């Protein structure tokens, strides 16, 4: 069957939602392929959790439709949908043991006792928690509680798994481990998954695709590499990763920024002299003590472990660069840009297309 005729695992079709007189989700369009892990990434209030809650059935869309495997589920109650949610604070029932938490949905479906036990054991084995089957939620760690919540969702074999900032209550180290566990389990089970987070690092490391949201709309929906290397809008560029922004003009082989500073830039093509927004990732800022780069003064040097961050004055602007810890720095540096992205009116201008003259 061709890809065009296969229904999407999840289709959010022109969905809108107002809450308390404010538009939270605005004509949103998103397609998640079957078996894919998509992250909804954005700042607080961008509508990502509202979107997830609409998919889960906890909110009804004001307009548009939500389709799972081609079936419209927009008006179904949560208990009737083929979805399962992992909540931000785990939402484990404190008066039930791990076994009872995980088996709750199966018991509601009146499955034979033997089958319930087998399925719970299987899913607890999947998340590595069979030894905690009889423990209560308060007797296990935060990471283990999160895995129980994941097991409770997976045991129902939903078509779509929804995760609402599931790692935000964990400490930094545990967060990295659990997110890798989640990704591994998701890939093993092959379940269509929507993962809400405001943590770009989390999104970049586990997603097949990321939808960056702002003001209730999807700014860009792309794979992590594309999203990082070619952010479609100024918002995405500033939200995902660090970026130096300058207003200036692009010439052949260089960019000219405020104060008339001309910085050599590989691949730059003249844009007709119109002022544009120029974005440069810190790792694309090349620093050396000699050469034809623009002169910059080092203001601060911030150790970041396996690399260091230099904050430099470049004419009237400031530039941040990530360099290896072994790179020796002096007060005066020469700066070049290995790569830059150009935005006209907040939208990425393809490198092959010159910006319009104003």
């Amino acid at each position, binding site marked *: 069957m061709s890809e065009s005729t296969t229904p999407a695992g999840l289709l959010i079709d022109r969905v809108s939602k107002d809450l308390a007189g404010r538009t939270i989700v605005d004509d949103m369009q998103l397609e998640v392929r079957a078996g894919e892990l998509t992250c909804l990434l954005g700042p607080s209030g961008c509508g990502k959790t509202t979107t997830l809650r609409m998919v*889960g059935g*906890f909110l009804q869309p004001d307009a548009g439709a939500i389709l799972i495997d081609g079936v419209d589920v927009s008006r179904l*109650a*949560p*208990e009737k949908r083929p*979805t*399962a*949610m992992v*909540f*931000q*604070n785990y*939402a*484990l*029932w*404190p*008066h039930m043991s791990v076994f009872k938490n995980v088996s*709750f*949905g199966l018991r*509601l*479906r009146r499955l034979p006792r033997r089958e319930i036990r087998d399925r719970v054991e299987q899913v607890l084995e999947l998340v590595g928690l069979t030894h905690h089957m009889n423990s*209560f*939620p*308060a*007797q296990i760690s935060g990471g283990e509680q999160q895995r129980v919540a994941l097991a*409770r*969702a997976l045991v*129902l074999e939903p078509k779509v798994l929804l995760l609402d900032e599931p790692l935000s209550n964990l400490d930094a180290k545990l967060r990295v481990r659990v997110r890798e566990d989640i990704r591994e389990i998701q890939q093993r089970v092959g379940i269509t998954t929507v993962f809400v987070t405001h943590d770009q690092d989390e999104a970049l490391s586990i997603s097949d695709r990321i939808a960056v949201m702002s003001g209730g709309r999807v700014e860009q929906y792309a794979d992590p590499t594309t999203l990082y290397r070619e952010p479609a809008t100024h918002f995405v560029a500033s939200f995902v990763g660090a970026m130096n922004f300058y207003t200036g003009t692009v010439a052949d082989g260089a960019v000219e920024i405020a104060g008339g500073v001309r910085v050599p830039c590989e691949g730059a093509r003249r844009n007709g002299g119109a002022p544009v927004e120029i974005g440069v990732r810190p790792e694309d800022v090349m620093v050396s003590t000699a050469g034809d780069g623009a002169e910059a003064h080092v203001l601060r040097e911030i150790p970041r472990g396996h690399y260091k961050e230099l904050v430099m004055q470049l004419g009237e602007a400031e530039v941040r660069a990530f360099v290896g810890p072994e790179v020796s720095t002096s007060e005066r540096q020469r700066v070049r840009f290995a790569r830059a992205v150009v935005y006209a009116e907040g939208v990425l201008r393809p490198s092959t297309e010159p910006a319009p003259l104003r």
Partner: protein
Amino acid sequence: MVLPPVAVVAVFIGFPVGAAIAYTLGKTGGPNSTIALIAQRQHVAKHGVTFAAYREVLGNAHVRGDLWATVWVTLLTIAAVVVLSWAIGLYVRLSDTWIARTVSALSVIPLFIPVVIASYAILTFYAAQGFIKTLAYHVGWHSFPTLGYTMWAVVIGEVWVNVPFGVLMMSSGLNSVPNALIEAARDSGASLPQTIRAVLLPMNVIPTVIVATFTGIYVLGSFTVPYLTGPSAPNLMGVSMSQFFQSFNQPQQAEVMAMIVFVLAAGLGTIYVWANMRAAKRASQTS
């Protein structure tokens, strides 16, 4: 540090209780000598103690009728208050409408109305010449029962007085259950009744036990509501005690009745303590 409160409790509660218990067992001397001088039908222990006063009171068919009425009204009131508190608490917890908020506000109003006023209000509503009966008469229902001065009026009055406390307790308990726990149950496939049974009910056992036991203890010791709205006989033990003490001048018998009510209340108190200890034990096991 602990001595002053212990001393206050010992002097103002412990000593009178001890003297009253001794009096019911026939000890008429010491702190009981003054009341013993004027009391009638006293049973005096010549050596040790005597249970004659208990035998007399429990052998009295009228008192047994009062005791039975007290137990009956208490159990019925507990059941009604628990059911109503749960119903209102659940409605307010699960419904975010102005009606729910209004119901929530109205349900606690009786807290601020003195019991004596409420009792007369109940009478004027349910008595033979009361509002309900008059209304029923006007619509042609001449056989509508008169509830005033019956045990039903007592139950209605006791429920009226105790429901606000019940609603406050249940609302507080139900509101402490995070939305996510309810949504997680719905997400797992539970209908609303299944969610209530599996999540809200077990997580609100303690507030329910508090409402039931406190209501029971209140009804066992109540006087104003049964005195004003209830029948002459049988009536609740509180009214009966008052009659034996004041009208019949039989304080020993009244104190025996108080001891019987105390034993019933202690039974309810034991359930409350047991539920709290169970909750504390579970909390210590899970933390």
